[in-house]
């Protein structure tokens, strides 16, 4: 039974009128704190606690540079990240890395500073660290701010559960995949299809950058004058 949430019994109030709490007889149990869940079979899965507000599992990964890191602590925590799945052999059919590269170019110097990219291989057996290194170089992937990682099957199951709602790697042939993005410091996470316009992707990711206090007069967000130049996918003032 899910005992994380319970209902108040005989919740009542003497106040009059609509919009004030009233009695309800359908209750069964009491509200309890929303606690961070722990794995019942934690022993078999190692240090598999969901971490932070983005609730990522902490798993060990190996980067294409041969480093052994913790996914959450070293690559996600306190960062704004894009995180997605790829595989070298699937890139031709579903060029997700090429798409992410277009986005990365638009970040410019922000990559590695304000935003980081994590590419997880869904084919760790073929995508060895050496192959990933060569692949990244061949693709022209910037060295700073972008990590290609591989992990064990069990770990990948956990990460896939977090990212895809099911405990297996995405099916590459489906040609449908999300790139997830988030500000882990705050706990804001979203996702966009891998093949949207790069400018759209950049706008979405920068939307979750830490905000700055607003000053000055109000600005018109939109709509822009009809026919005026601007982004093709919205009516925002350019």
């Amino acid at each position, binding site marked *: 039974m899910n005992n994380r*949430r319970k209902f108040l019994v005989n919740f009542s109030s003497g106040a009059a009128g609509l919009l004030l709490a009233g009695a309800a007889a359908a209750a069964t149990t009491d509200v309890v704190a929303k606690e961070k869940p722990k794995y019942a079979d934690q022993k078999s899965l190692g240090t598999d606690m969901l971490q932070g507000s983005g609730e990522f599992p902490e798993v060990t990964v190996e980067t294409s540079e041969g480093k052994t890191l913790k996914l959450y602590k070293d690559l996600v925590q306190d960062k704004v990240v894009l995180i997605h799945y790829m595989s070298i052999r699937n890139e031709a059919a579903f060029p997700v890395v090429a798409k992410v590269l277009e986005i990365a170019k638009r970040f410019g110097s922000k990559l590695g500073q304000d935003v980081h990219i994590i590419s997880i291989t869904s084919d760790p057996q073929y995508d060895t660290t050496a192959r990933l290194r060569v692949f990244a170089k061949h693709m022209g992937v910037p060295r700073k701010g972008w990590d290609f990682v591989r992990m064990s099957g069990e770990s990948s199951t956990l990460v896939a559960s977090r990212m*895809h709602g099911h*405990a297996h790697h995405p099916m590459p042939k489906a040609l*449908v995949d999300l790139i997830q993005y988030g500000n882990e410091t705050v706990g804001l996470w979203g996702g966009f299809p891998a093949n949207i316009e790069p400018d759209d992707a950049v706008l979405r990711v920068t*939307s979750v950058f830490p905000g700055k*206090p607003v000053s000055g007069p109000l600005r018109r967000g939109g709509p822009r004058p009809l026919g005026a130049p601007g982004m093709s996918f919205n*009516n925002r003032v350019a």
Partner: protein
Amino acid sequence: MPIAQPVPLSQLNPPPDPSSHQRWDDFVPKKYYIQTLSEVLWEYSDQYPYNQGSWSYGMNGIIPGETFVANYGEPLLIRRINNLPPVGQGHIKFALPSSTIHTHNGHQASESDGFPADFTFPGEFWDHHYPSVYAGCDKLGNLVGDPREALTTLWYHDHRLDFTAPNTYAGLTGFYLNFDKQDSNNENDTTPGAFRLPSGKYDVPLILHDVAFDKYGQAAWDFVGAVPRVNPEVAGGFDSHNTTYTVNGMIGDRFTVNRRIQPFFRVERRKYRLRVLNGGPSRLYSLAFTMDGKTPEPVVIITNDGNFIPAPLTVQDYVDYWPAQRRDVIIDFAKYKKGDKLYLTNRLESRVDGAGQTGRYLDTNDLIMRFDVVGGPVNNDPSRIPEFFRDMPPVDLSEVKREREWKFDYTNGLWTINDKLMDPDRVDAHIGKETAEVWTIRNDGDAWSHPIHTHFEEGIILEFNGKPVLPGDIRYGRHDTYQLGPGDEIKFFGRWRDFVGRYIIHCHNTVHEDHAMMATWKIESDSTESVAAITPVKKTIG
């Protein structure tokens, strides 16, 4: 709930830019409004811990936002100012302080419709122009339109790309009510043809949201744990310690109406118009008004979504309300005694992961809110329930330029339409302005439910799972939101008129929407897609 009050144009600084709005000169606003989005402390209840205040996204300081009362023939403009705290600086962590507001299902131009990519950031504003015109004005060659296209109970809500679910959950919803000479907002109206439905304090919008709270009374957005995981070592065989990030839905454990937890409402012994709306995010309801928590009382249903049905329908049964759906219900409390209590009651069991219904009814129904009958008989209730409201616009299949199919499915843990995910830059249907089409929407899944909503125009359901929908069927009439259960298929007729630009079709389980079950269609003056005509059928329905 408070009614929104207009402000002088001089308060909009800088002033609206007419060149940004289609047909501004045709529909010059007669009223202006300002709505400011900000983070507010809201009391969901006067009981602890809710009385400590729950941080929410409010509009003009309240949730739900103020109710807009719009009259056909009186265009208006709403300036929505984003004064939400920037990312990381507010109390709410799960919602994004970037918003676009959609008036569901108004007949407004694309640039005022709250397209998901038309969002503001803190410190910005967006001007929404509402022409308050019946659809079909261009075909009729006037600036009035077809009164049979009149809309009534609409609502507005955040529609921000990727964050509609948490943003609406945080508070960004409210009502938008249309009136005209027939539905005149005056139960004493002696004008011939006036409906004289209950008005004023007897016309009550009710928006349902189920919300989960933490032990501090703060609304919590449950990313993980909604799906019980099989664990034979635990009693019952399931535990909630599941790593699956829920893209299925969000089920709250407190029922709120107008953002109050299970409220009660004192009603006089006369007729009331109750505008019941399922504000989501994901829960499906099957609702009735009961005295014993089980047995439906008779009520009179007068609308489907924002449309009057041709004639009032007396129903003594549970009626389904899926997210975004609304029905106006007339209840005459005169037949009850002082001290009687009626409950808005739900019998439908929802999947805990929010993806739809389990297929079972609850053993013990949910009591959403309570109506307490007070006072003696009201002998001078001036309100009426007409025997007939309006004819529906005719369905003329000879007008149909194209038939389209929209297939709703699930791939790679994501929600797809025609095997694709939402891309605001990709137009999936180019529709000729002033054309009609027949759309078939189909749920290819066998375990989940989708309330499918398409913007801007209403549709008339022709068939449900291959069978014609006829008068007397609860589905008969115009809709903007369609119930697609597992394996269901609905065919509807629609017209696309008066404005051009991008709009969307999507699942209104907003968690599905955010995980990309949405598609863009576009009305174009010179679309070539729509001229690929099907063989015309010379038949008129309705």
